[in-house]
Each structure stands twice: as C-alpha cells, then as structure tokens.
C-alpha cells in the first residue's frame, strides 16, 4: 500500500514539474530574430570568418611558393 501511494505521489510530482516547466516562459531572443536584425550579426561574423580564411589561404600559398623555390 505504502509503495502504491509513494509511486502515485511521484507521478503527481512529475506531472506538476513538467507543467511548471512548460508554463514558465523561458525568455528567448525571438524579437531579435523576427525583427531581422540577427542577420546583421551573422553578416559581421561571416565577414570576420571569410577574412581570416583569405588570410590563411595567402599564408598557405606563400609557403607553397617557398617549398617550390627550395625544390628548384
């Protein structure tokens, strides 16, 4: 009997917890995304990334040239 009551209480507790989780609104940056301004951030990050990549490619090229001149 005790076990049944205990498991019943557990189930209730779990239900309350899950309800509490869905009900409490977790604040997310939905406005930022819907207003479209997030794209500005993406643009900035993409520019930095592409810039760095171009820089790396030039270094790569330079080393390749050096390797070739050594072999020659």
């Amino acid at each position, binding site marked *: 009997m005790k076990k049944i009551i205990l498991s019943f209480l557990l189930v209730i507790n779990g239900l309350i917890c899950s309800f509490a989780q869905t009900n409490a609104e977790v604040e*997310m*940056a939905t406005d930022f995304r819907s207003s479209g301004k997030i794209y500005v951030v993406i643009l900035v990050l993409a520019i930095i990334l592409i810039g760095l990549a171009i820089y790396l490619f030039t270094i*790569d090229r330079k080393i390749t040239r050096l390797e070739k001149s*050594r072999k020659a």
Partner: protein
Amino acid sequence: MTMKHYWWKILALLLLLYGIIAGLLGPVPALPIVHETIRNVYFHVPMWFTMFTLYLISVIYSIKYLSSNNPHHDLVAVESVNVGVIFCTFGLLTGMAWANFTWGAPWPNDPKLNGSAIATLMYLAYLVLRNALEEEQKRAKISAIYNVFAFPIMIVLMYILPKTTDSLHPGAGGNSGFGQFDLDGSMKAVLYPTAIGWILTGIWLMTLRFRIRKLEYQNHTVSE
C-alpha cells in the same frame, strides 16, 4: 598546387559558415538558466573536439617517430601540440565566459574544467621538456616518450573521471546528456558539421606551422 589540394580547406570554411548561420538562426530548445546561450554549444564544444583531435594526431606521430626516427614525424607531433594548446585556451576562455553568466562563476569547481586545466599543464610540461633538451634527436625521442606516456592519463582525466563525479556539464555524473533536450536532433545537425569544420581548420593550422618548421629545418641542416 592545384585546387585539388585545397578542397578540404574550402570545405572547412563552408562548414564554419554553416555553423554561424544555422547556429544563430536554427531552432533551439528553450531551457531555463541557459536561455539563448545554449547556442554556445555550437562554438564552445568544437574547441574541445579540435583540441582532442590534435592531441591524438600528436600521439600518433610520436609513436611513428619512435619506430621511424624520421624528424618530420617529430615536427608534426610538436606542431599538433602547439595548435592544440591554442584550441584548449579557446575552450577554457569561452567556457569561463559562458559559466560566468549561467553558473555564476568563471571557475566553478567542476571536474571537466579542472581536468582540462590539468591536461593543459601536461602539454605545457611536454613543451617545457622540449626546451630543456638541446640535442635535436634526443629532444625528439624523449619528448615523444613523454607524450605517449601522458596521453592515456589525459584520457582518464578528461573523459573517465568526470563521468564518475558530479558535474555541471551535461552527460556527466548523473546529469542527463544534451541529447535529451535535443529531441529532433536539430542541434546535432549543427554541432557535428561545425565541429568537423573546426577540426579541419585546426589540422590546416597545424600543417601550415609544420610546413614552416620543415622549411626552417631544411635551411638549418643545409647551412651546417
């Protein structure tokens, strides 16, 4: 060099671009405490993946060096550690920044955090050992031995110990893994490609450093 040799570097760039776009726009579960910072998973976790891959490459090349005595293998091993330490620093710094806003302190007493800090010490010790040895062959051999000796202990430190201890990180010490929040796998679809992108970038950096070192090494041996 033709385009043929560059394809994986371009792939790395595209994967990173995908990571930025999908990482900021894609759907994420709304969780208390972490809120939008859950997106940090896409940028913080790949640092550790990359570090681990580089250390793995390093230990493989240390083993190769011990059986071949080819100085180039030693150069790959040390440059992997050099780049791996950079990614470890990024992982620690990004983790500290994130922890400060979600767990309330930049250095909460967490086994994963402490483990990675100690692993960093291990690889700094490897670099100190290299500086302590003057003769090139001896330096290569002895540091390779230390690298192979320390690697399994790093695995225990970073992957086995945290699993048996209480941790703030998901997937450790009774915490549920992050797969539980990511029911439709949409987070994995961003995390894994981004991680591959970062790993490729790390390897790219390592090969750049290795090629410079090789050129220096050749200059050095010719001039003598």
